[in-house]
């Protein structure tokens, strides 16, 4: 089975990324030097983290439009904590970020699970509520670079074996969630609950609860990314990462995640994110206005979803084949 999967979407996407890099390299060879690629990966790390969470949510036939707002709210909360208590060690900040993000995700999850409100409505609502809450907390003010403590800002940039911690966190998340998805009961439950909710119920899987955990994971990752984002850019404000939820959904769609649920992989989501990340990093170096980015990612989404649909199209029943062999 791993062979089959590798032969399909992931390989195709890796090929597309290689082609993209090759095209860029013809105009700007320095782009594909290892150090620059590492930079691109590091820039894309937040998108990768969020795409993993979103993928899990989409697997269960839901969608989480509140991830970017969650990121911004959690980012603001940990920033304010840092301003109030500069001495608080970074690991505790990270725990707070993950926990707070997960809590926000649980709000979505509870509404979807217990009240059975359609996820798009729930997360549309919480998205605006989270953004508004940031305003209430911060009174609309920005928290700027000089207000953060140095360790708070230094963490994602700290290097280990030549890569910033930010990148390592993304790599760790990809590995960790690959294992969770393929080798744990919960991981398989995500696929089952989205692939065939009716059957999942009969197999002893509580579909609503599974969706709840998907939202919780998505929220936790958004919270983690919230800290990484504000610390890396050393700024927190209401509209932080505004509209980023759509890039996250785009990364998933490009990564082969089926919006109807049940199909998708962690590696696919990562590749989808990288695809977008490479484009946004490459535009300035190949002298295309960064204003092209939005349109290009829009086009990429449409092409990707068309290709996905082609691959997943229901094959009609083959009744005749045997008859022809028989006669």
């Amino acid at each position, binding site marked *: 089975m791993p062979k089959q999967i590798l032969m399909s979407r992931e390989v195709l996407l890796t090929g597309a990324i290689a082609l993209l890099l090759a095209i860029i390299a013809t105009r700007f060879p320095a782009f594909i030097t290892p150090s620059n690629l590492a930079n691109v990966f590091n820039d894309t790390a937040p998108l990768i983290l969020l795409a993993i969470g979103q993928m899990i949510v989409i697997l269960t036939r839901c*969608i989480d439009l509140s991830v970017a707002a969650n990121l911004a709210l959690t980012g603001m909360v940990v920033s304010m904590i840092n301003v109030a208590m500069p001495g608080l060690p970074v690991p505790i900040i990270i725990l707070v970020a993950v926990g707070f993000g997960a809590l926000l995700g649980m709000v979505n999850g509870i509404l979807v699970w217990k009240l059975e409100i359609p996820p798009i409505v729930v997360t549309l609502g919480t998205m605006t509520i989270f*953004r508004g809450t940031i305003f209430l907390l911060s009174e609309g003010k920005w928290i700027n670079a000089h207000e953060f403590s140095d360790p708070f800002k230094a963490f994602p940039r700290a290097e280990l074996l030549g890569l910033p911690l930010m990148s390592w966190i993304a790599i760790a998340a990809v590995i960790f969630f690959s294992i969770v998805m393929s080798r744990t009961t919960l991981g398989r439950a995500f696929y089952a609950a989205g692939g065939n909710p009716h059957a999942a119920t009969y197999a002893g899987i509580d579909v609503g609860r599974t969706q709840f955990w998907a939202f919780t994971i998505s929220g936790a990752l958004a919270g983690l990314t919230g800290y990484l984002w504000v610390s890396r850019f050393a700024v927190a404000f209401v509209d932080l990462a505004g509209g980023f939820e759509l890039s996250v959904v785009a990364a998933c769609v490009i990564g082969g995640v089926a919006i109807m649920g049940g199909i998708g992989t962690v590696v696919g989501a990562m590749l989808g994110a990288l695809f977008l990340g490479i484009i946004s990093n490459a535009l300035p170096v190949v002298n295309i206005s960064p204003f092209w980015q939005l349109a290009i*990612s*829009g086009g990429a*989404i*449409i092409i990707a979803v068309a290709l996905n*649909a082609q691959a997943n199209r229901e094959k009609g029943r083959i009744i005749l084949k045997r008859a022809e062999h028989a006669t």
Partner: protein
Amino acid sequence: MTNTARFIPDRLESPLERRLKSWETLLLAVAVGIFIVNSFTSPYFLNAWNLSDMTFNFTEKAMIAFAMALLIIAGEIDLSVASIIALASTAMGAAVQVGVGTPGLVLIGLGVGLICGAFNGFLVTKMGLPSIVVTIGTMSLFRGISYIVLGDQAYRGYPSDFSFFGQGYVFWVISFEFVLFAIIALLYFVILHKTNFGRAVYAIGNNAIGAEFSGIRVARVKFILFLLTGLMSGIAAICLTSRLASTRPSIAFGWELEIVTMVVLGGVSILGGSGSIPGVVIAAFVMGLVTFGLGLLNVPGIVMSIVIGLLLIGVIALPRLWEKWRA
């Protein structure tokens, strides 16, 4: 088969009875409540000109919301509407630069709306792609094109007679936009509730396959709905551009979510199959009144979004909580 056919009454409940128990009635009560509260909390509220200004908060969005309501009832969604506004507005702005007059601008606005709607409709009905992803894609694509054209610039210099659409008054405090809104509401009421086409929309939303098997041309109906949504976005673009007298690529940013909120608040099921135009009309007023009332109290816009978000989740969650409580 027995020959003593039993008499089956047409209805058990009169339409009036049904209407009294409906969502629309509840919503109307909410609207009246907000109106009363507003008139007590602010001395400026009960002023004809202020109330007239209030309508600008929702007229443009509501025009699109009517078409969106039909689309959502039919089981599809269009998240690209705000981006269609941006593209249509950009096209009109570009035309102004080469001296196109008001009639030409109107034609361009409507034409771009129709083309965008047709593009969405083509991808969804001819290629069989899920509309939520397609329109997330075209949402980036359409606005992306505006960014490519405009970058961080703006178009100005619209002809003076063009300002009538967004700034003109037909009679006393009754604005042109409000009249247009009322006419469009009436048209959509007739289309959805009084015609064969409207019946087909409900049938498709409840069971698209069943509708197809009943001889309804499902793809054609859906295509027309995307066209209508595009057209309404074009009309809204004309009004908004005229009102602002300028075009930036960020115009109407985030409106798609407010429009979907308006539709859902109006009692349209996000899962398709049910909803009404009166509901959307009342929802438009509710949202306008809330925004306006809070505005008079000097509450910033972002906080209003919390109220809107809570309203969206609350109006769906509360009845369900109530049912759970009783069970």
